[in-house]
């Protein structure tokens, strides 16, 4: 049962998370495109990472970045789209037009991953026909935004209200897959309950063997256990262990399944294993301190993350998230 207070807290956290994300971004960050594998590309610099599937079926995006970067993201996608559409063609003066952006999948609700929804979706198109077109006249307008149900629930409660066009319109509860191949492969969405938030989605591109994790896994900081939006350290660990169950190395614990984090560089199973180890060890240390009746301030002062602080930066938010998650003190 969600109470107005819960929603208020969630909205407050969302705003804080967005502010944090904005504060971490340079004013006009460079939008960079890094090939991942096959038709998958990492778009970096827009806020959270965006993973783009670009090919003959059009464009599917995992997340949409911050709202203020949407125009530059669109320009980058358009450039990439034209380049790919015209790759390997006959020498001609005709330029093959780019394929439309058809789907945006939101991995979770934070503004650095959903802020571009409205503008980017508007630039896209949903392919409709038959009964659907008959029922809804505007069904073809814009790309379809997909998310886990909790993302829509929480984004709908944010005050001031987000534009309707920024909200996901196709939601699921446990798992979802596109009903058809997209750019030659299955696209599978899996809900990771109560991890970074309560609406986290992993997006797995089965043919390419590439997994987009959202902010459950990042290479730039400690994980953010967003308690106000339903996150928990145990859910975070369950999700990280799920990645390890899914991923297979090409050889000697490297390569193979590629993991695209919510922030940072492209990774593989070993990188996720190290991150899982770190979160587990910190969880165990904090749990041990709780057993010894230490308060949050005492736990912070004991620096249970000191071995990783030079790598991941300020630990306060993470330690607090772990502590409160283990003591159920929100």
């Amino acid at each position, binding site marked *: 049962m969600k109470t107005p207070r819960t929603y208020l807290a969630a909205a407050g956290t969302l705003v804080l998370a967005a502010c944090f994300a904005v504060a971490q971004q340079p004013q006009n960050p460079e939008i*960079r495109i*890094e090939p991942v594998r096959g038709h998958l590309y*990492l778009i*970096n610099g827009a806020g959270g990472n965006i993973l783009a599937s670009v090919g003959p079926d059009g464009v599917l995006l995992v997340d949409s970045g911050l709202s203020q970067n949407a125009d530059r993201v669109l320009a980058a996608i358009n450039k990439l789209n034209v380049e790919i559409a015209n790759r390997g063609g006959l020498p001609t003066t005709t330029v093959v037009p780019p394929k439309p952006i058809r789907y945006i999948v939101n991995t979770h609700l934070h503004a650095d991953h959903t802020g571009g929804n409205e503008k980017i979706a508007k630039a896209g198109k949903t392919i409709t026909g038959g009964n659907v077109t008959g029922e809804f006249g505007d069904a073809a307008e814009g790309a379809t935004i997909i998310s886990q149900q909790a993302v829509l629930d929480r984004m709908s409660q944010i005050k001031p209200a987000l534009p309707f066009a920024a909200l996901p319109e196709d939601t699921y509860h446990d798992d979802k897959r596109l009903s058809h191949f997209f750019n030659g492969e299955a696209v599978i969405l899996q809900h990771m309950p109560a991890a970074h938030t309560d609406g986290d989605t992993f997006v797995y591109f089965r043919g390419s063997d590439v997994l987009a994790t959202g902010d459950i896994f990042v*290479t730039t900081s400690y994980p953010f256990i967003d308690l106000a939006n339903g996150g928990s350290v145990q859910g975070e*660990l*369950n999700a990280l*262990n799920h990645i*390890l169950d899914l991923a297979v*190395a090409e*050889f*000697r*614990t*490297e*390569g193979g399944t*590629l993991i695209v984090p919510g922030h940072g*560089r*492209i*990774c*593989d*199973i*070993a*990188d996720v*294993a*190290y991150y*899982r*180890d770190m979160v*587990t*060890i910190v969880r*165990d*240390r904090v749990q*041990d301190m709780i057993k010894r009746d230490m308060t949050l301030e005492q736990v912070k002062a004991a620096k*249970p993350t*000191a*071995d*990783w*602080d*030079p*790598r991941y930066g300020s630990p306060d938010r993470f330690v607090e998230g772990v502590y409160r998650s283990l003591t159920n003190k929100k």
Partner: protein
Amino acid sequence: MKLRAVVLLVALGAPAFAQMDFAGEWAPVQDEDNTGNPYVGEFLGIPMSPAGKLRGEAWSGSYMTLPEWQCRPHGAMYISRGPSQVRIWKEVDPVTRQLTAYHAEWLRSIDNPYYLDGRPHPSDLAVHTWGGFSTAEFVGEMLKITTTHLKEDYYRRNGVPSSDRATLTQYWIRRGDYLTWVTIAYDPVYLTEPMIRSSEYRLALNQQIPPYPCDAVEEVVRAKGVVPHELPGKNAFMGEFGKKYNIPIEITRGGAESMYPEAARKIEAERNKK
């Protein structure tokens, strides 16, 4: 015209003739620096940062039984210090016959290419590997190798961590049948200063490196998600090395100070007290 062509060909070919050749089968020359099986807490001589020391002290040997780590190779930060033999071979462009890359592979490593064809290092968004991404250039008769994009790894196989922000500069120096392999590690996370080490190899013409296949198995029955480690201050094995060799514990725990002669004098003074 013909003369000009010949001069041009000689000029193009000249660097190749002047280059030292490192290709071959090389066996490690065992000495006190080939730290095959170090003690838990044997961090002497490594300029570990405070974070590196804490990480090392939390390490448990059981950690390596996790399925994720059973098949890991030794990475670039450690492999040339280990006891295994190495094969170095050349990749040559079939048209120009210029050297494109050297490759090195040890008993338990992945292939490590060192590119000499001028290709740039990948972007900082690219995936990291155990061997990293390496470019190389000749400096006189030495080969200088610059390695980036390394995975998190270890400097010593008892949990002395290296970070994925570390880089490596390596030098190959050949004197007849001997090869000196110098590594200089830079690590803003787990080292306080560059760590310079050298290892010796001897040409071994009849050497054959066997395959090293690996399949992860359930080595230890444990609940899902358990990661073996020692809680801070609770590692009962930390004192073993110092006790066995009569070395003050604070020196066994590494740090830049443990690399210098003052540390040796401190050990001597400690022994003389007894």
